[in-house]
């Protein structure tokens, strides 16, 4: 066994010298072509067309370091404390607002992003970036109910169905305080950005009632996709982009945006404040807005693109799918999340009380 350990030690040394040599080699190449810039991009995992980065690198002779994160808050924590030195990031709406307020993102020079003209006008000047100075939409969608047609006979058009005790253990709620409290606020006719304690208390009572009715099977995260495809429950609250995928895998599933309204979400591209390469960063954003590239991304990810020209290339099936491209009428009651600032503590308290029941 000693010999095994010794062997491992040797292997470790070999591997690490390999790594060092690799680094060394990289250094010399970058020295060789002095002007080659390295752009650092931070995005959700598996959230870009497979060849897009390579195409960008070849087209502009820029090196891209591409890293991924798993959720907005985790990304924010890391960037805020100086743990990452990225140039471009792609967070969601309310997080962008927070980053703007905290001075973490830079104003964009839209002269460098001519392709911005392709972005649908209804996705400009949204609440999180009212004058549209900081962000360019990348993907968008809604939050709604996905249900299994073989298990549900009632008409599904309202959040109320998730409080119907006919469906015991048939509902997957999201294990996310903001989303679950948000849709409950909508159900009660409030804004999902409310900071009023009274309205939040009502939402809390409503969620506790839902739990006590026994309709909730569990509060779930990303694994909900597989579960709905398997037919583990009749209803789930999901993001529209995932709904498109789920419907493809299981044709019995149907997606609706409840009439009371819901959440409209965006993932948008921003340039971070400590960047040394603003011009290249804007070049990257512009590149992501080229019609072919926007199509490639949307096609690979399966979420909805805000790009008017890319949208035209989508299959008619997808275009008529409410999960992918709802009409203006269908989303008229929807709201975009705003940053809650200190009220987030109230949300957290409420959520702890609900989950302690």
């Amino acid at each position: 066994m000693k010999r095994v350990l010794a062997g491992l030690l040797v292997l470790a040394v070999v591997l690490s010298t390999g790594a060092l040599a690799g680094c060394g080699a990289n250094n010399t190449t970058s020295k060789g072509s002095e002007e080659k810039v390295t752009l650092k991009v931070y995005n959700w995992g598996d959230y870009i067309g497979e060849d897009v980065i390579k195409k960008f690198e070849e087209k502009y002779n820029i090196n891209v370091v591409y890293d991924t994160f798993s959720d907005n808050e985790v990304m924010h924590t890391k960037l805020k404390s100086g743990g990452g030195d990225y140039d471009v990031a792609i967070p969601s709406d309310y997080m962008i607002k927070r980053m703007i307020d905290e001075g973490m993102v830079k104003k964009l020079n839209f002269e460098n992003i001519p392709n911005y003209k392709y972005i649908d006008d209804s996705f400009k000047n949204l609440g999180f970036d009212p004058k549209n100075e900081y962000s360019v939409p990348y993907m968008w969608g809604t939050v709604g109910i996905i249900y299994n047609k073989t298990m549900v006979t009632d008409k599904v058009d309202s959040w109320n169905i998730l409080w119907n005790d006919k469906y015991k253990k048939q509902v997957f709620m999201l294990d996310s305080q903001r989303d679950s409290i948000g849709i409950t606020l909508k159900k009660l006719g409030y804004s999902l950005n409310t900071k009023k304690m009274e309205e939040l208390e009502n939402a809390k009572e409503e969620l506790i009632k839902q739990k006590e009715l026994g309709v909730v099977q569990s509060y779930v995260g990303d694994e909900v996709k597989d579960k709905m495809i398997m037919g583990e429950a009749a209803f789930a609250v999901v993001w529209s982009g995932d709904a498109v995928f789920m419907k493809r895998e299981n044709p019995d599933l149907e997606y609706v945006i409840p009439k009371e309204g819901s959440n409209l979400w965006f993932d948008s591209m921003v340039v971070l404040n400590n960047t040394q390469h603003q011009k290249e960063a804007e070049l990257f954003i512009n590149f992501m807005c080229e019609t072919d590239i926007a199509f490639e991304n949307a096609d690979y990810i399966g979420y909805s693109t805000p790009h008017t020209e890319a949208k035209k290339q989508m299959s008619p099936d997808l275009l008529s799918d409410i999960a992918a491209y709802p009409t203006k009428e269908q989303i008229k009651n929807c709201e975009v999340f705003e940053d809650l600032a200190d009220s987030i503590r109230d949300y957290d308290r409420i959520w702890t009380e609900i989950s302690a029941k």
Partner: protein
Amino acid sequence: MVKRIIMKSYLGLVLLFMYLPIVVLIVFSFNKSKSRGNWSGFTLKWYGELFQNSQIMDSLYNTLLLALISSVVAVIIGTFAAIGIHNMKKFKKSVVMNLTYLPVLNPDIVTGVSLMIMFVFIGSLIGLKMGFLTMLLAHITFNIPYVILSVLPKLKQMNKHLYEAALDLGATSMYALRKVIMPEIMPGIISGFLMAFTLSIDDFVISYFTAGSGVSNLSITIYSMARTGVKPTINALSTLMFVSVLLLLILINIRASREEKRKRQYDA
């Protein structure tokens, strides 16, 4: 004989428990559909995709390198630490042990964030950037307690006078350490190494906060895929890893048993 059968079936049962999820994981690496909720036919395409995906391959390389170096370093530091701690007076010993527990006691997020703040701070002083090195230091830190905790019981079990006897017989302390103590505690060192390696491979939160840009391990890659769905490519990778480890183990086992046989013949 009956006893042996009972023993074997108990081991089999526990092993079944350990390997059931692994079998499921392997089966789904051959699934045509991206979702584990839908078995839509046999395919090898994920294996093909795996080798073209440079992000996954890079993070695999980082993961293995990280696990190997961090566990070897942790074993070296931890083993010597355990020997030292074992010889301490009671009060001092319990202070040191309580401190040793801290990285395990803290939720990963607390360890991760506090190490990150420290690295950022020190980095700004000496111009060190977050990267592979900071991640490695963090991994060694949370690995050491496990090594200490597995070596200490072996030291307690050892006959106290063995080492002194060696010294009396004229061995230098280094020689006695190598020839008397080390062989006695070797099983503890090995299990400490195995645990450290395992923890390092699987860590997500601490790695996430201590890694610099451009460095990522498998856990980071996999967790960040969760929103759009972890692809069966990862299952394919796990399957390959699993099969190669198993083959290696069988190979070692065959060699060991052959050596033993030869030894037995020689003895006879």
